[in-house]
């Protein structure tokens, strides 16, 4: 089975690409990024602030498996409905650095749409730290999710 979500991370570079095709019409996919209530639901975060417009900004809060609150925020450099979002992203009080995120939304026909997420980190080291982050969540995080996905697929 072909994977729906793909990650391209070239060794020695400070950026990466995440692509995904959705079984959703383009306006519906975009809405999931625009609307605070919907963002809260699929990202599993509390939306403290979300101003979806060019020169807008956002601030989200999430709770890690140990119960600690993590906040992250950024400014929205460009916001073009159904097409493009360019924003910064930074976890507050964490050593991951700030990153620039370019989201390209595209209609692919047949009621489907595609998202390409280009993420540029401060340095190669910052990118690799971010790539390894799901590993560090250990058994409570990524592995459980892998298990869950695998067991769903074999059903």
């Amino acid at each position, binding site marked *: 089975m072909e994977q729906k979500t793909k*990650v391209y991370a070239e*060794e020695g570079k400070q950026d990466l690409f995440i692509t995904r095709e959705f079984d959703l019409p383009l306006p519906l996919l975009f809405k999931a990024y625009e609307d605070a209530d919907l963002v809260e639901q699929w990202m599993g975060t509390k939306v403290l602030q979300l101003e979806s417009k060019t020169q807008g900004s956002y601030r989200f809060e999430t709770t890690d498996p140990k119960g600690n609150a993590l906040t992250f925020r950024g400014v929205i450099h460009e916001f073009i409905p159904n097409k493009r979002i360019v924003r910064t992203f930074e976890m507050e009080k964490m050593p991951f650095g700030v990153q620039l995120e370019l989201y390209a939304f595209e209609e692919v026909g047949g009621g489907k749409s595609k998202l390409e997420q280009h993420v540029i980190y401060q340095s190669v080291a910052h990118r690799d730290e971010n790539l390894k982050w799901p590993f560090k969540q250990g058994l409570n995080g990524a592995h459980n999710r892998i298990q869950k*996905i695998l067991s769903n697929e074999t059903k």
Partner: protein
Amino acid sequence: MKTRRDVFQALADPTRRAIIALLAASSMTPTAIAENFDSSRQTISKHLQILAECALLSPEQKGREIHYRLNPEGMKEVADFIEPFRVFWDDRFNKLESLMKKHQSKP
């Protein structure tokens, strides 16, 4: 880890990723592969050479022809490194997709 660096460089190119996607279905001769692209036969040969060098593809002699096939071991090395990160995003996107499907069907 020289091999890993080469693998990532090999996959950074969109034509090479397309070749891999093409060969996922079945092994093919260089001529048959090149027919799927606008690039010259020479350009495709160069791409095949790079993919073979980092063990993503293996050439196989079949009679008088060479066929290229995907090397699952080479692909596995790439997958192992990025997999938890990919699964993290896949999980999120799956949630987005199912949420928006429900949202769509609401009157």
